[in-house]
């Protein structure tokens, strides 16, 4: 104890007051944090605590302010748990006064003219809307005349705390300091990935840097924590596989799911991303740590447009500019990608990288093929036109479509034009004739790969026969 006092004076002597960091006052011990993608984390905190023999109440300050107390588990040698409590009766002036009902407080009146103070003992009779006091044999309402009155209480009532407090009551078979481990789940800690992709369209290459971005909004700082990130959502609600009205969805970014296993630590089906060194995750901090840096991966620019129904557009519509690349170990990024946002950059005429758009990726296995739309092409457009729609019978229609494609770029481009809406509510649409062969992707859509000359135009036409 004396040593502790010496130490305190040392700190006070050697450090200026501003250097009294909050970490130094944290009650946390050896902290490990495992963070999932869906705003959930498992915190393990091993503290050295003196536990006496018999029944002890052990308080744990500095746990997450958003702790889910029902998930707490406690372990220490030679102890058995009697009960766990999470108390959130917080100290406030109102609570202080309410708990003083029936007790004696000191009131200090200040004379507004002279500033002279007079002290009296008062018993708090009731606190209902206002405070009713008994002073000697008078009954008064506190500050009824609006004049200054200080109320001085003897002590802070028990069980009122500045912050919600977790406590565990244990029965210990022996006395002494020992390691006590506390584990709990907390929301407010989450992570995702942010990718910086520098795309060189001419060379057909992409440089990708991946950053883990973790955010802490729990209200608590985790000092010097071992940190492990799990690429996955736990306890997420089961996904539905169908789509509304039985209409197939547009293909999305993941065009081919990979079948390669990345050379990373795994936990069940989840990939793990441990941070190399212990780190302090401050409250309200967004922290980014690099986990991927790949140069010169083959990538291709492309153009895609999807006409959702057999309909006309009044104006020409821009194709989406897409970037295609693989996550394979062979000619790709060579890693599994945790879900996040990919931001694409391209060098301008002066060589400075400029932002050209972003897109989201889900958790992507290694070996996958990705097609990410970055934006709309200014110069490559298509105007779908219904040339004719004839009724061939009660449940049968014939639609003649024309697609006018224009390219204002000085080089030839190849575009993927998708006509969707071919299968909606059990309809059966066949292609009677087309100006160039298309590839039927599924019952709902068909795709033409069209070469468009530099500064030129081309037209695709097709006749569809739809039966209900």
């Amino acid at each position, binding site marked *: 104890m004396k040593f502790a006092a010496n130490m305190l004076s040392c700190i006070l002597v050697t450090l200026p007051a501003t250097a009294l960091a909050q970490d130094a006052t944290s009650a946390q011990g050896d902290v490990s944090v495992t963070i999932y993608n869906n705003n959930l984390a498992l915190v393990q905190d091993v503290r050295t605590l003196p536990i006496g023999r018999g029944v002890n109440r052990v308080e744990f300050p500095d746990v997450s302010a958003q702790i889910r107390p029902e998930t707490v588990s406690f372990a220490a040698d030679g102890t058995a748990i009697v009960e766990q409590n999470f108390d959130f009766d917080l100290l406030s002036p109102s609570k202080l006064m309410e708990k003083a009902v029936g007790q004696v407080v000191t009131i200090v009146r200040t004379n507004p003219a002279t500033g002279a103070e007079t002290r009296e003992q008062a018993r708090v009779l009731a606190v209902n809307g206002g405070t009713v006091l008994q002073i000697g044999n008078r009954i008064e309402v506190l500050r009824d005349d609006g004049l200054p009155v200080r109320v001085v209480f003897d002590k802070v009532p028990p069980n009122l705390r500045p912050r919600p407090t977790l406590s565990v009551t244990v029965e210990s078979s022996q006395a002494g300091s020992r390691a006590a481990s506390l584990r709990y789940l907390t929301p407010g800690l989450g992570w995702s990935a942010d990718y910086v992709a520098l795309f060189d369209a001419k060379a057909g290459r992409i440089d990708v840097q991946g950053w883990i971005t973790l955010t802490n909004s729990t209200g608590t700082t985790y000092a010097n924590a071992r940190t492990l990130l799990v690429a996955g959502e736990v306890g997420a609600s089961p996904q539905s596989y169908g789509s509304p009205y039985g209409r197939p969805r547009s293909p999305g970014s993941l065009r081919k799911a990979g079948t390669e296993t990345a050379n990373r630590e795994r936990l069940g089906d989840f990939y793990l991303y441990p941070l190399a060194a212990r780190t302090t995750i401050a409250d309200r901090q967004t922290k980014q740590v690099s986990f991927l840096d790949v140069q010169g991966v083959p990538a291709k620019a492309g153009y895609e447009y999807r006409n959702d129904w057999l309909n006309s557009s009044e104006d020409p519509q821009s194709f989406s500019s897409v970037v295609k690349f693989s996550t394979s170990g062979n000619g790709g990024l060579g890693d599994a990608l945790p879900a996040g946002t990919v931001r694409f950059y391209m060098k301008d005429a002066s060589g400075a990288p400029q932002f050209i758009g972003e897109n989201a990726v889900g958790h992507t296995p290694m070996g996958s093929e990705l097609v990410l739309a970055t934006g709309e092409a200014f110069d490559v457009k298509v105007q779908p036109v219904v040339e004719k729609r004839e009724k061939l019978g009660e449940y049968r*229609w014939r639609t003649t479509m024309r697609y006018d494609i224009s390219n204002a770029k000085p080089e030839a481009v190849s575009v993927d034009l998708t006509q969707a809406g071919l299968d909606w509510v059990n309809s059966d649409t066949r292609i009677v004739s087309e100006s160039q062969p298309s590839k039927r992707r599924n019952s709902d859509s068909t795709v033409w790969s069209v070469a468009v000359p530099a500064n030129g135009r081309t037209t695709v036409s097709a006749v569809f026969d739809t039966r209900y």
Partner: protein
Amino acid sequence: MRLILACLLLALPIAAQAQAIVTSAGPETSSVTVYRDPDRGEGGISASFPTGFALITETRRIALPAGESTVRFEGVADGMIAVSAVVTGLPGGVVQKNRDARLLSPAALLDGSLGNRVHLRRTSRATGKVTDQDAIIRSGPDGAVVLQTSEGVEALRCSGIPESLSYDSVPAGLAARPTLSVTTVSPSATSALVTLTYLSTGFDWGANYVAKVAKNGRTLDLFAWLTVANGNASGFVDAQLMAVAGRVNREADYDSLVENAPSPSLHLQCWPMATTSTDSPPPPPMSASMMMADMSEIVVTAQRRNESLAAAPVVKMAKQEELGDLKLYRVPMRVDVNAHGQKQVALLQKSAVPFHLYYAAKLWPLDPGDESQPMAKTLRMQNRANAGLGLPLPSGGVALFEQADGESLLLANSDMRDHAIGEEAEIDAGRSAQVRIRHIGVAGKDGTIQSFRIEVTNALDKPVPVEVQLARPDGYSLIGPSRTLGEKDGAWLWAQTVPANGKAEFAYRLKEDR
């Protein structure tokens, strides 16, 4: 002596562990590339709340000590999207990037001082005497402040006496503004030229076209401003300014990435304070004099006369470059992008662009309105070099002027979408009350055949070309139109010139398919 030694031993590891903090106050050079709000449509921008974004690239000269250090970047845009920040040029690379948003506020000061000693100051209203005493904070900031002093436990500011707390220090980890910092390990002490690139909200840009119809009525002079707005509290001095036309995909919710976590607020709440006279009567109704006072605010507005549009010539014009599938406009000189400011530079200029003026209407062939409606006056240009244009036209607002008696008169104010080279560009020049269209259903349905008539009247003393688009109705065939129809954008097109002070008619029949 032993105590001093112990102190030294304690102090040493602290000093060794401490990271050097290097603060970079501002950029040496900066470049700002502004992107349109992709969801904003074609119209003008809001200068006070710009909804687009910008890519900001800064170079900063930073003196790094050897070993591990933390570099704090100050003077960045307040709309900075920290997760997009890329820092290059550090010799030791980036170990980690942090954005700290625990802000110094009254509540944070109180919360960070919980259990610590603070000073409670009371001032007597009668004598002005100040008494200062030490106190320890016992409650969090949520339900107001409970203090422990040598006299006992008290609540702050419940007594009616002016009371205030003062603190010895700012708790660690609190900053005035959210701050980006990177940790790096430098092999040696050096001065590095670091590039910081990040996206920031609070910017937007738009093209503002001014089209002046020449006296001959057949050509127009097209000029466009590049209008950039910066809604940030930070300005960029002597910056390279660029703007990107086209629509870029935006996935993340930028506002939520920028938004600061709400700072805890301090609620000073005492115990229940009702007195015997708390049930006070409702406030008196507003008296006549008070109402007068409220209404005395008189708003004076005046309309400034449009200055003649014979504007001064433009010296510097933005230079257009290709950026993948987007168009990049580079302002050819360094400019100041001011905080909360809007800036305009010339974007493009083309003179004597020939155009075709016509009157347009779009009809649904089965739904005659039978009412005479004004037709839309439209200027059509071909965006080709051999037709006087031939350059990318980014979307924006269009102000159309015509010369009359030496004065420029505003004809129309409309919007235009992105136009690539080779496309047909049209300017909406408003509706004409003189050239009108009437769509009439003719009585008498013959089985599956219905008859219709379209009538265009021209009250002008010159012939006008009209173009009427009839959408194709599914399951109907057109029979016996009185004229051959063209086709445009998937619709039938009736194009004709209506004589001066005359009219034109067109009759058609629709037959329902089986």
